[in-house]
């Protein structure tokens, strides 16, 4: 089956105004997002995540390499059929009400006006904005903007969702709700490309993760493969008394084992890679 996103040797250079120099924002990036998976794209600010997303959405043209969405070049508008996008900062028409905004984007995505009303009601309820649907978007808080952004990304029931910082500005309860929604969407068979700084959330919900730094792919794989420490095993047990724990630890040490924290978190790995990248530069 054709992958949802297939990027091969992607390069994106930006011309620096009033200079002949070029800034390489994405450097030979290759990755594949399989259908039905949640793929996390991580990296510090300026690592090329948003540029990559913009190339995927056809908002930027690749300087080199290829980028395909459902097997079509990302520069073809047809590639965006079945794609929903939540931008990093919520840029929406402030003069529209939430309901009108969804109707507008729905009509642009091919939704019939007659059938849109029911879909809009469902989505407003899904993102918890059923009471704010008739308010102007300009009066929404940042968290509400993220929610309406999520609703507009879902309006045409897309197969691929690209979520750039979906929990930015959302309170912890809201962030947890969004994480649950993402898992729910995956269960419905959707593919999700997720950019987030909430590493614990990415670790909890993503199937595969790519970590970028200075435009390059630093590490890619399943969350488990990235966070495991080679050559080490761990046994996790609950409910041990201090005495029993100490006995087990002593026994392990007697047998030549080294006792330590068994694995690092994705956050540890991310920080380590990001710092290494910073030191290199």
């Amino acid at each position, binding site marked *: 089956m054709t992958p949802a996103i297939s990027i091969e040797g992607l390069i994106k250079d930006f011309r620096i105004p009033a200079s002949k120099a070029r800034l390489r924002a994405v450097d030979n990036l290759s990755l594949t997002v399989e259908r039905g998976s949640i793929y996390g794209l991580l990296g510090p600010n300026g690592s090329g995540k948003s540029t990559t997303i913009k190339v995927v959405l056809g908002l930027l043209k690749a300087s080199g390499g290829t980028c395909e969405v459902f097997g079509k070049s990302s520069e073809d*508008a047809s*590639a965006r*059929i*079945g794609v929903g996008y939540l931008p990093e900062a919520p840029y929406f028409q402030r*003069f529209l009400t939430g309901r009108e905004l969804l109707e507008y984007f729905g*009509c*642009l995505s091919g939704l019939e006006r007659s059938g849109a009303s029911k879909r809009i009601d469902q989505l407003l309820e899904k993102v918890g904005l059923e009471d704010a649907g008739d308010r102007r978007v300009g009066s929404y808080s940042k968290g509400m903007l993220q929610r309406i952004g999520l609703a507009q990304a879902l309006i*045409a029931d897309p197969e*691929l969702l690209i979520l750039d910082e979906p929990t930015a500005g959302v309170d912890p309860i809201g962030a947890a709700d969004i994480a649950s929604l993402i898992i729910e969407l995956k269960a419905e068979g959707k593919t999700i490309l997720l950019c987030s700084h909430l590493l614990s959330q990415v670790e909890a919900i993503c199937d595969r993760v790519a970590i970028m730094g200075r435009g390059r792919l630093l590490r890619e794989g399943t969350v488990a493969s990235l966070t495991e420490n080679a050559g080490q095993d761990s046994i996790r047990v609950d409910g041990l008394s201090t005495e029993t724990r100490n006995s087990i630890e002593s026994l392990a040490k007697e047998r030549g084992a080294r006792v330590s924290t068994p694995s690092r978190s994705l956050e540890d790995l991310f920080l380590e890679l990001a710092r290494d990248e910073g030191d290199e530069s």
Partner: protein
Amino acid sequence: MKAPNDKLRWSLRRVRVIAGNTFREAVRMKLFLAMTILAIGALASSFLFQEFNFGSSELKFIADFGFGGMTVFGSALAIIVTAQLFYGEIEHRTALTLLAKPIYRSEFVLGKFLGAWATVACFLGMMTTCLIFALWWRETSIMVEYPDDFQDGRIVRYGAVIGFSAIQALRIGILCSVVVLFSTYASSSLFAMVMGVLIWIVGQLQHIATEAWIAVDNWLLKGVYALASFALPNFHLFDVGDKLALGENLPGAIYGKLGFYSLLYVSFYLAVASASFNRREL
């Protein structure tokens, strides 16, 4: 709902949706309120002319004043509104979300143009209504004061006032398409507006370039003048105010000719604008 494997067809429906939303933005941005105030202001100022009381020639004065207002305010609004409504989408980054949908950029360009044009056309409609009302009201009063001037009935030809307004809508359509073109590669709305004003002024003087093209012998200059003559619209063609309302009749063919002329230039500028916007990185 379309599946990802489908081919996206260019759609007038999406153009209509974008145009409708652009028009709604203009209405809600209170641009319409400003326009209404302008139109009412123009009407109110025409009431002041009754103090001059110079008989039937006063009607010509009011008509000229109204036509001038339509041309000047209409052109100024066409430049400001189009730059605001088109470049505003780029400036406020709302175009990012919009163009991430399955739409062609040429649909966006045409939709924004139609929305902006419809907005300014509404302003012209309001101005025309106000002008007709002012002319009719004054003509009724003057008919009582100077019955000798009106032995053959009313002298104002109200259909011609509407005709003038329609011709100005064509001129403004060209101007809107010029501003759309500059907005597609501008880095600020101010640039698009300045270029719009420049083309407006140059367009008013374009007939000089045409005359020079015909008269000059130097081939290089002839080429430059010829290029200017074809690439820039001749807005002077739309200055028909003197001939209308109280003067001579415009032949019906002139409406058709100006319509075709406008369609040609609007199509040309929008085609270039679409090509330019396709290359633009957001």
